């Protein structure tokens, strides 16, 4: 096992991450965001604000992965995210969860420029919309000055990013897990009541905390597959209360976790590359 060292007094780092996932998810798939396909509009109408209010009340720094198209549609809201001290990171232009090939660098740059213009500073983190990436994605992100990606599902801890057997200098992988620590599978696949999802995430947290870990939860502020509704956001408040019982669990922005790791990159190198 790697010799994990968190900032002094911290046994477990906690990243609450919110993927904006507005109506661009549907538009990008050539689906009109109307009628029952309009779930994503809720992110802009109330879902993102609900999480901003919750994090403000709880005094928690969080990370928002914002699609470029959502930032164009809701510039004031995205400015408010950054203004509250949260991290605004990149999440595709229209949540492209399909192969982009040679068109990808231009789209990554487009979203990069939009987020930079709206928030006043460049994004430093990226999460793949839909969970695909390529060597070209990683090279482009590195060229644009990104310091981490949060799309891998192959480890419990951050590690120095690699692609196809090569380590990427000054670039961290901060894994997420779309199977167990994401709202989508429970609300779109198994249709589980929020109270049971809360119990599941509490078990995840407790097990990760015991191992001195890294807890990265992915939420979506939309309706439908997300956690934008009153019932589903209420369990996040209760989850925070649970985590708060542990004084050595620290809520951190993803970029702050990446920068912490990059102070001593060698510590985070993978023992073996598969």
């Amino acid at each position, binding site marked *: 096992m790697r010799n994990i060292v968190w900032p002094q007094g911290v046994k477990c780092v906690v990243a609450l991450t919110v993927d904006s996932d507005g109506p661009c998810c549907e538009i990008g798939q050539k689906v009109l965001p109307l009628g029952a396909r309009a779930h994503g509009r809720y992110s802009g109408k109330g879902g993102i604000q609900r999480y901003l209010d919750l994090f403000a009340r709880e005094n928690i720094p969080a990370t928002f992965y914002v699609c470029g198209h959502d930032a164009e549609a809701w510039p004031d809201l995205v400015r408010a995210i950054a203004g509250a001290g949260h991290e605004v990171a990149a999440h595709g232009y229209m949540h492209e969860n399909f192969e982009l090939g040679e068109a990808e660098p231009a789209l990554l740059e487009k979203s990069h420029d939009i987020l930079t213009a709206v928030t006043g500073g460049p994004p430093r983190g990226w999460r*793949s919309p*839909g*969970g*695909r*990436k*390529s*060597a070209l994605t990683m090279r482009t992100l590195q060229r644009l000055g990104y310091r981490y990606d949060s*799309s*891998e*599902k*192959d*480890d*419990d801890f951050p590690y120095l990013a690699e*692609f*196809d057997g090569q380590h990427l200098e000054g670039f961290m992988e901060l894994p997420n*897990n*779309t*199977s*167990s620590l994401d709202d989508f*599978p*429970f609300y779109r*696949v*198994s249709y*589980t009541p929020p109270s*049971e*999802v809360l*119990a*599941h995430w509490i*078990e*995840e947290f*407790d*097990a*990760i905390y*015991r*191992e001195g*870990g890294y807890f990265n939860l992915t939420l979506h502020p939309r309706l439908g597959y997300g956690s934008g509704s009153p019932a589903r956001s209420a369990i996040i408040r209760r989850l925070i209360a649970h985590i708060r019982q542990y004084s050595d669990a620290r809520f951190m922005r993803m970029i702050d976790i990446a920068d912490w790791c990059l102070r001593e990159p060698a510590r985070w190198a*993978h023992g*073996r590359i*598969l």
Partner: protein
Amino acid sequence: MPRQACTLCVSVNFHGTSLERQNFPHEKLYAKFGYGRYTGNVGHQRVRSLLRDRGLKATYFVPAYEAQAQPWAIEEIMADGHEIASHGFMMEDLGQAGEKEGELLGQAHEFLTRLTGKPPRGFRAPHGQMSACTLPILSRLGYFYDASFQDDFRPYALDGDGGTGMVEIPQNEMLIDATLYGLNHTHARVLKTWIEEFDAAWEEGGLLVLTLHPRSDYGSGRASRIGLVARFLDHVLTRENVGWQTCGEVAAAWRAGGNVGPGRP
């Protein structure tokens, strides 16, 4: 008290990246296609230490590709005293393999024999998919048992199905972690299902095969999930008249006496 003794087999389907490698080249095995790498990075060690802590020997069904790609893991599994059995070459659907099936199974057999130093005696079909030729091929290769069927709570002879001389060690889909995790059910639902399955089966006695995967999506490799497996094992192994054996031991005992004994306590 149960009417008859109950035997638990713990089986581990050692799935790494072989599932995705069937459809994608190496450079695509990242992000959502990278769950399989969790097995080698983390999940395998978690399953290993749980089995060691509980003093259990398991049967690992290993796709030959995984053994070739992660030989260190195979060495660890053997050093721990577990049984290694075949799980095809690279998660091929044998129902669709057509005339290549004999070659695939023969190649997997040869690889595992070379890597482990002895021929595997047991087999479990990837995805549980078989053709009418699978059992005859396995029988010709000298396999003693199969563990792919889901149609009984006791071992039985496979001669009538084309597996001449072979024994079936059937599993129960509700005791396969991937069944419910694959549908994104919560830990609590999985544990509740397993306990209800076991409690009722215990009344009758017989064979219970628990099947685990070390992956982080449809498997039990995550810290929270291995904790759940531990709770289930503690529930099972503290009941009266329950023991455990490897799949190979159950097959041999059944062949020798026509019965499922209690196994080791």
